[in-house]
């Protein structure tokens, strides 16, 4: 059956309005990602993201001018945590509960030049973040972990790129993120570096509640979470 041309035009126009626009041609200055890009980055189907959003209401993206979902970096990080829990065998509902991190009380972010002074700068940054916090053991552990991560970044990362350290203080925990430029880390390299002196990760593993490595061709990011209860 052939529709009258006027009706066919209306349907095509409606379909065009519903068609997602190419995001490549319209990069968002705020670093927001559309659902397809997020799904590709996480290696899951966009429908999974929509289902999680509808069921759990934990990651609810804002909408763009065309009604498309737009995820900010914090939401992508939350989804990454959800997915990590799911891949460890957690139910999606529990994974969402575990993935929610409250807003930090304070944040410190620094760029540190790769040098012998880098670990000292990391400890000073942690001191500045903690301020008058009266928990010497937690403060010591956090300084030690920051110092070891930054030392490793200096020893094994690119000497041409600054080390970035971000520290967040929560009411009962802290999160450190240390990023360095350089090539992808492999398990073999980690083992060799352990023999050669890059051994801070066993300290991190002994002191942290949780930690993760995200490594790629442009560099490596290590994220560590320490809780005050775990330090006691």
């Amino acid at each position, binding site marked *: 059956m052939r529709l009258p041309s006027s009706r066919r035009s209306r349907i095509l126009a409606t379909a065009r309005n519903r068609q997602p626009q190419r995001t490549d041609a319209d990069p968002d200055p705020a670093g927001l990602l559309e659902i397809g890009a997020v799904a590709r980055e996480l290696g899951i189907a966009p429908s999974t993201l929509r289902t999680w959003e509808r069921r759990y209401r934990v990651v609810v993206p804002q909408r763009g001018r065309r009604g498309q979902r737009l995820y900010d970096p914090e939401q992508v990080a939350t989804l990454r945590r959800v997915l990590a829990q799911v891949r460890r065998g957690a139910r999606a509902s529990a994974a969402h509960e575990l993935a929610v991190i409250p807003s930090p009380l304070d944040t410190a972010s620094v760029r540190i030049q790769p040098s012998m002074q880098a670990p000292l700068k990391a400890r000073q940054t942690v001191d500045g973040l903690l301020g008058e916090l009266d928990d*010497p*053991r937690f403060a010591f552990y956090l300084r030690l972990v920051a110092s070891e991560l930054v030392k490793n970044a200096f020893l094994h990362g690119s000497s041409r790129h600054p080390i970035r350290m971000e520290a967040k203080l929560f009411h009962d925990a802290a999160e450190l993120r240390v990023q360095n430029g350089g090539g992808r880390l492999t398990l073999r390299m980690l083992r060799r570096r352990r023999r050669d002196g890059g051994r801070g990760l066993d*300290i991190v593993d*002994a002191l942290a509640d949780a930690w993760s490595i995200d490594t790629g061709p442009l560099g490596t990011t290590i994220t560590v979470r320490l809780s005050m209860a775990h330090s006691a």
Partner: protein
Amino acid sequence: MNESLFRLVNERLEKRVADRGPDAPFEIVCECAREDCTLRIPILIAEYEAVRSEATKFVVVRGHADPAVERVVDSNDGYEIVEKLGEAALVAEVENPRDG
């Protein structure tokens, strides 16, 4: 006292390998007073346990002992065992993680 805090870190490092038996080697952090010293010391679990059996003894890299607060009571190629003196000994006992 940083030495006591490093001792806590080392207790955690030992805990990770405790099931390997007394002759298993592992690495601890130097238990000297300097917070920026994180030099590593290879040690057997049995050797580490012998030091930990006395609250006032600590393991440091050779040359890191501070004669003002401690004396060297044993040494080998890799490390020295120091014993805290005076008030430092008292603090070490009070902060002993294995006490009670």
